[in-house]
Each structure stands twice: as C-alpha cells, then as structure tokens.
C-alpha cells in the first residue's frame, strides 16, 4: 500500500520530466534516420550496373574532394560524378522536400489524404512539360525549356487555387475541392494534347510524367537546392503554427493566429517547394503521402518533430527506391516513380494494419 503511494507520488512529482523524456524520445527517430541516410547515400553510390569496385568508387570521391592525393580510373570517376551522385543527391533533396511538403499539407488542409500534389501541381507541371516537349515552345527557350515550362504551369495552377480560395477564407474543404478540379482540368488538357501528338513525343511526355531522377544534372541541383532548403527552413520555423492549425480554425484564431493568411502562406511555400522538385524530376508519387504517415505512427503529430522526420524518411525511401530502380532489372533502369509506389503501398498498409491490431 505504502509502496504504491510512494510510486504515485514519485510519478506525480515528475510529470514535467516525464513529458520532457517522452518528447525527447520522439527525437530518436530523427537520430536514427540521419546516419541511416548517410549510410544509404554511400551504398547507393556504390551499387549499380557498371562494374566498378567499392574501393574505386571511394577513391573517385576522395579525388574530387582532396585533389592531388588520389588517382581514380576514368570509368569510376564518370560513374560516380556524372551518373550516380547527381541522382542520389537529387533523391536526397526531393525526398526531403516531398516528405515535409506532405506532412505540412496534411495539417494545413486538415486531411490525412492530403499530399504534395493535392493542389494539382503534378498534372499542371506535366501539362507544361508536355507543351514544351510536343510544341517545342515555352515561355523561356534553350535547355531549360521543359523545366521552366513545368515550373511556371505548376505555379499558375497554384495561383488559380489561391485566388479562388482566398475569397472563401481559405477553408480546407474549399481548397481541396478546387485542387481536385484543377487536377482534372490539367489532366484533360494533357490528354487532349497527347491525343493529337506524334507517338515519339507522346512517349517522351509520358516518361517525363512518371517521375525519374535520371535526367538530373549538377546545374539542376545547384538551381533547386536553395529553393528546397529555404522552403524547408521556413516550414520548420512555422511548425508550431502548423500544430495550432490542426487544433481547429476557431481555436487557432482565438490564440492570435491569422488563419487564412497562414494557410495561404504555407500553401504558397509548399507549392514553390514541390514545383521546384517536380520540374526537374517529374511527379514522383507516394513519398509525400507515405513518409509523414509512417512517422506519425511512431512519433505522433507534433510538427516540430514530424516534419524533419518525414523529410529524412522521404529521402531514405526515395534513395532506396532509386537504387532498386537502377539495379532490379539491370542494365535497364526503371523510373523511380513506379518503384516508390510499389514499395510504399505495402509498407503503409502493413504499418496501418499493425497499429489497428
């Protein structure tokens, strides 16, 4: 009896400490994911169709980082610096961005089905890209024709959604429905255009839309890195406000949060982030939906922990999927968008069944 009382008292005294410990436990997922990611990057660079030994791979990396001390073969240098590393780094950036974007959209639109492409960014970017591929015309020409066209059409689509929904105080249901409508509109536009196009061009356009890391160059990475890092930093900075949005619009307003303005701002940042990824890679599906949900199962809904974890897990999933895509029917390479979906669906269903049971 006295033992039990002591135990109770002890527990009561440390309520705050219990909470602090409980909260730090959430950081464990982040602490586990970060080194895993580094390990995966190393692994992904070492695995592929070309017959290059692991030793050669790391000599090639060291040669670039510390010139003069190492001498790599021409083949290994090419494989690492021109073929594998760009797509692995883009996988890291895109996975990070899509994972966080998905987590943010779910809270901002108060809907577990929300994902980075819910505002029609994938189909509008796809339409912009098809337009450039089929007609060879765009708002900016040259080597960035397809990329800029995809980026601009993605932003046009988001712009239309914000213009319509801000008149309605940016209610989540309104935004989602307008997003769905825009999605269908751009899909129909795309189909209409492909219907009359030359078969080779249609094939190129279709491949563009599946989502692939293979066409990424170092210049692309240099362009997209600041966009992705700035957007992600902004979203992390707003993590507390995103938590409050999840508690309901009325309550958020009563805490002094300007709800319509915050919601629109967050959606603009997410649109910029996702457009900045999609225009280089095409629409890589499912990472943005699966990564935040898997993290929710383990650490709950606090966005200060959820967003970094979802970003890291997104990168882990995407790099893994891309490595599988490069090697599973080697030397042929599958588009990573197909693999993320094939890997993500059973994983998510398994985890949800586990939780309910």
């Amino acid at each position, binding site marked *: 009896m006295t033992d039990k009382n002591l135990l109770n008292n002890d527990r009561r005294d440390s309520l705050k400490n219990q909470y602090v410990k409980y909260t730090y436990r959430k950081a464990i997922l982040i602490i586990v994911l970060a080194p895993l990611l580094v390990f995966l990057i190393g692994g992904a660079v070492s695995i592929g169709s070309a017959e290059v030994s692991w030793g050669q791979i790391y000599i090639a990396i060291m040669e670039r980082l510390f010139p003069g001390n190492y001498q790599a073969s021409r083949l290994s240098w090419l494989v690492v610096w021109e073929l594998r590393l760009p797509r692995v780094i883009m996988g890291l950036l895109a996975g990070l961005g899509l994972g966080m974007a998905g987590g943010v959209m*779910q809270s901002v639109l108060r809907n577990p089905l929300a994902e980075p492409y819910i505002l029609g960014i994938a189909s509008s970017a796809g339409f912009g890209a098809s337009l450039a591929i089929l007609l060879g015309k765009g708002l900016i020409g040259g080597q960035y024709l397809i990329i800029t066209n995809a980026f601009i059409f993605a932003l046009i689509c988001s712009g239309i959604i914000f213009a319509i929904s801000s008149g309605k105080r940016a209610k989540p249901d309104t935004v989602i429905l307008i997003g769905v409508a825009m999605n269908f509109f751009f899909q129909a536009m795309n189909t209409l255009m492909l219907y009359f196009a030359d078969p080779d061009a249609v094939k190129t356009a279709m491949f563009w839309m599946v989502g692939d890391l293979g066409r990424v160059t170092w210049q692309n990475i240099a362009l997209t890195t600041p966009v992705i890092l700035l957007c992600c930093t902004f979203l992390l900075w707003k993590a507390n406000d995103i*938590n409050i949005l999840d508690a309901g619009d009325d309550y958020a307003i009563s805490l002094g*949060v300007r709800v319509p303005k915050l919601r629109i701002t967050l959606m603009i940042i997410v649109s910029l982030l996702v457009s900045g990824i999609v225009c280089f890679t095409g629409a890589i599906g499912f990472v943005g939906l699966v990564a935040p949900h898997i993290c929710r199962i383990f650490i709950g809904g606090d966005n200060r922990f959820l967003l970094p974890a979802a970003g890291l897990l997104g990168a882990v999933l995407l790099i893994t999927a891309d490595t599988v895509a490069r090697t599973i029917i080697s030397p042929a390479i599958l588009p990573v968008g197909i693999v993320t979906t094939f890997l993500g669906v059973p994983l998510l269903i398994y985890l949800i069944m586990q939780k309910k049971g």
Partner: protein
Amino acid sequence: MKLKLKDIEFTYSSVPVLNKISFEVQDTEFIGIIGPNGSGKSTLIKCIDQILKPQGGTILLDGETINNIKNNDIAKAFAYVPQKTDTVFSLNVFDAILMGRTPHSGWRNNQYDLDMVEKVIKRMNLEDIALRDIKELSGGQQQKVLIARAIAQQTKMLLLDEPVSNLDIRHQLEVMDILVELVRDEKLSLIMVIHDLNLASRFMNRIIMMKDGNIFAAGSSAEVFSETNISQVYGVDVKIIEEEGFVHIIPFRKAVCSL
C-alpha cells in the same frame, strides 16, 4: 479587466444572428448565457473573441476598441473553450494544454510554460491521462483538457462554449467548483454558454437569457428564472422551487400556448 459590448450585430449569409446586443462585464463576474438552440449564444462569444467579426457595434476592452488591439494581445486577454476538440491528427494531453501557452511563448516552450502546464494538469486531475492521445479520451475528459488549456493561457477572461455538457454530474460539479475558484482567487471573469439551467442558477452571478439574437432578460438567477420567462423563451412549462438558497427549475411539458 472591463469588457463592454455595445450594439453588437452579426449576420450570417444575410440571416441576422445577433441583433444589437449590449452588456458589460466587470472583474470577477461569472456570467451564464442561456437560451434555446440557435438563439445566438455561441456566435456571441465568438464575436467577443474576434473569431467572428461583428458587422456592427463596438467591443471595448478596458475602454479601448478591440479592433485596435493586436491579435496576440487579444489572445492574452481572452481564452476560448470550444464545444469539442477538433484535432485531425494525434496530440497528447500535455501538448494540447501546452498549446494554450502560445500567446506567451516562442518556438520552444520554456521551463515556466512546462511548470504551468503541470500545475494545471494537477488542478484539473488529469495526471493519469497526461501523455494519452486526446482523441482516445472520452468526451468528458476531452472537455476537461480544453478547460485546462484555457486556464494555462493565463488570461483575465475565459469564454466557454458549453464546457460541461459531456461531463457526468460529479465531474460537472468538480469543474464548476474549479471555475468558481478561478473567479474568486485569481479575479478572472467568465462568460459561459450553458444549457443546464440548474447549474447556471447555482454557480453564476449573472444570467443573460437570449432569444432569437436578442437579450430577452438579464440579471440574477432569481430574477431571470421565472416561470413566465422560461415558458416564453423555451416554450416549456416549468415549476421553480427554492432549495438551499438556489433557484431550481423542474421542467414539466412543452407549453401549449406559446410558439
């Protein structure tokens, strides 16, 4: 803190909900807003907290119009307790209550915020569920968490929208006692929308009785709770009895004459 409402009007999609509502609230008042469903009670407290912007009239907070006060300062003046939780994703009770500290804190919560939350959790007897997901709790436990969250916000006034409707009678009395203590010990003012007339009569200093967006009657419970008032506002025949110094309302049947 003094709150003054003057001619507040609110229209929802061209249907008038509030029609020139005026009243004043002094320090340490416990005010109950009663009235039938759809009489504008919830709208009224949302208008006070600026969750809804009234189309007409003025709200003065210590003599200053509320339109000139910054959002964050309004959040330091009023804490709002909604009818039910509205979270979509999981959120534990401690974090939910910590959210009430938002107007006072930055990106990370400091030790004072955590101590404050711990104190409120103990006061509301929520220790056993402090780390549970709020969505897994019963309706009554959720309501206690929402009230705890408002107390943690450390405002001069609480605006509560039917905060005890899902509690059993024992917990209703427990929560009402805590609220009365807040009014007495910490000099708060409370405005509470409530359907239970007997609870209102027993615990509140002043009753505002609403009908169709107007104040039908206002005053002490003995003044407001008359058989004619209740019959005219609710369309119900009741018997009023006095017991231990409180007015009690016993409903009989729907009134035949009015409505």
